[in-house]
């Protein structure tokens, strides 16, 4: 299988503070890759680096094309959607407007047809369609963030801690839907999670990040088996 996304020698920094120290990783075409690690390991920064939201060195290629150094808007238009940390909801706007923004780069009519398709995954958003997005519950906002990203019709979906701050039942529901989406939409996924057990169940490949360096990579099955890694980095 070929790689959709490849990063080589990727460094990233906020001003003087270096966060990533030359990491290599890849996301396979049609696959799900998980990026695991403790708080402050650089997981979110890695996603920001892919979308050109922090200063980086090294190369990032999407389907063979260099995207490092490009503006966020242009990377997004190449088919990279991100469900950002904190969900990135447009609080003041309605659910409908949030969805229209998700489809901003596509012809309006085509996108409106997609709305119905999205409601099949997340029927609750249909009930909330005209409501101000800031009034949604955390789980609903997470769903809205995923829908906003999917409406871009991305090749690559970046998910930043979709389980964050949600009750276990809601987390299960969201991952069940994500599994359906992965099957139906043919989108490749890079998943950042602190909840390692749920991430390793969902992903085929995984990388473990520690203070800006990759300390282990391999298939999810291998990483689950490795007791040492599990104890020291994944905490379960």
């Amino acid at each position, binding site marked *: 299988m070929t790689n959709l996304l490849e990063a080589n020698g990727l460094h990233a920094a906020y001003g003087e503070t270096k966060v990533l120290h030359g990491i290599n990783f890849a996301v396979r075409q049609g696959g799900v890759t998980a990026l695991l690690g403790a708080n402050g390991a650089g997981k979110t920064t890695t996603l920001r680096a892919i979308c050109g939201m922090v200063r980086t060195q090294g190369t990032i290629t999407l389907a063979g094309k260099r995207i490092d150094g490009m503006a966020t808007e242009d990377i997004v238009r190449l088919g990279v959607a*991100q469900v*950002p940390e904190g969900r990135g909801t447009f*609080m*003041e706007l309605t659910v409908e*407007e949030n969805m229209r923004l998700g489809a*901003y780069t596509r012809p309006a009519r085509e996108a409106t047809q997609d709305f119905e398709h999205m409601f099949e995954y997340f029927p609750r958003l249909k009930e909330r369609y005209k409501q101000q997005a800031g009034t949604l519950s*955390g789980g609903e906002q997470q769903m809205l963030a995923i829908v906003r*990203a999917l409406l*871009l019709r991305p090749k690559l979906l970046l998910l930043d801690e979709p389980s964050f701050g949600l009750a276990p039942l809601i987390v299960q529901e969201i991952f069940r839907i994500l599994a359906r989406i992965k099957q139906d939409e043919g989108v490749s996924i890079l998943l950042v999670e602190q909840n390692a057990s749920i991430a390793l169940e969902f992903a085929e490949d995984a990388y473990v990040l520690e203070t800006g360096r990759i300390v282990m990579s391999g298939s999810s099955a291998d990483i689950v088996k490795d007791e040492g890694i599990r104890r020291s980095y994944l905490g379960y």
Partner: protein
Amino acid sequence: MFAGVLHQIMSGIATGGIYASVALALVMIYQATHHVNFAQGEMATFSTYITLTFINAGFPYWIALATAVVLSFIVGVAIERVLMRPLANAPVLASVGVFIGLLLIVNSLSGWFFDYTIKQFPTPFPDHPMLGGYLSGHELGSTAVTLIVLISVYLFFRHTRLGLAMRAAAFNPVSSRLVGVRVGWMLALGWGLAAAIGAIAGAMVAPIVFLDPNMMAGILLYAFAGALLGGIDNPLGAVIGGFMVGVIENLGGAYLVGTELKLTLALVIIVTVLTIKPTGLMGRKVFSRV
């Protein structure tokens, strides 16, 4: 007595419309940048001179105004791209400095190009009283123009893709970039739109207050009072606030403080709102649940 009051209220609404459109221009830039563009008034004055130049060159009134509006839009976009862009991450004082600098520069340019003498400005509307004598033809006509502008702006922001993208860019630039909105250009468009609205407001107010380089100084103060009264981050609130200030100003000038102290009313409103209810009457309430 009653007829007099009604007359004052009606013409208050007419001037209030001008304040409302300038207040809207202020709010549009405030929402996107969290700064008040103090140069908004001077930019509008300069646009009004451009309109007058085209009229004097023999162009029909509406063509002259439309051309000036388009030019103002382009200049507004250019100012954001060239002057404000580099200040995107600068401290507040740097931006305030640039706004004040812009105010002085545009004001001086108006005087330099068009001299400081007070000029008459034509009105395209009939020169006789209307609505049973309560409003002059110009007051009625300019109110209509203002309402058309305000409604168009509202429809643009509510019902077009670009309008939605501009609102999104103002509320949440990071998420906007992540859905592919070109945030920098949205800010520039906001400046262009504000400048275009200012050009129309200037042309509507100039026949009443006459045109000179400081024409908009007082208007900007009233508009700022209106924007604060309605809520500086709420476009609808600012518009309503603008109309209210127009009425308060007229009634106050006629029955309370006299015309000389009218501008003081604007300052009283500004200080009162800032001390008692800084968000204004319709300040934005953001709901959030965690």
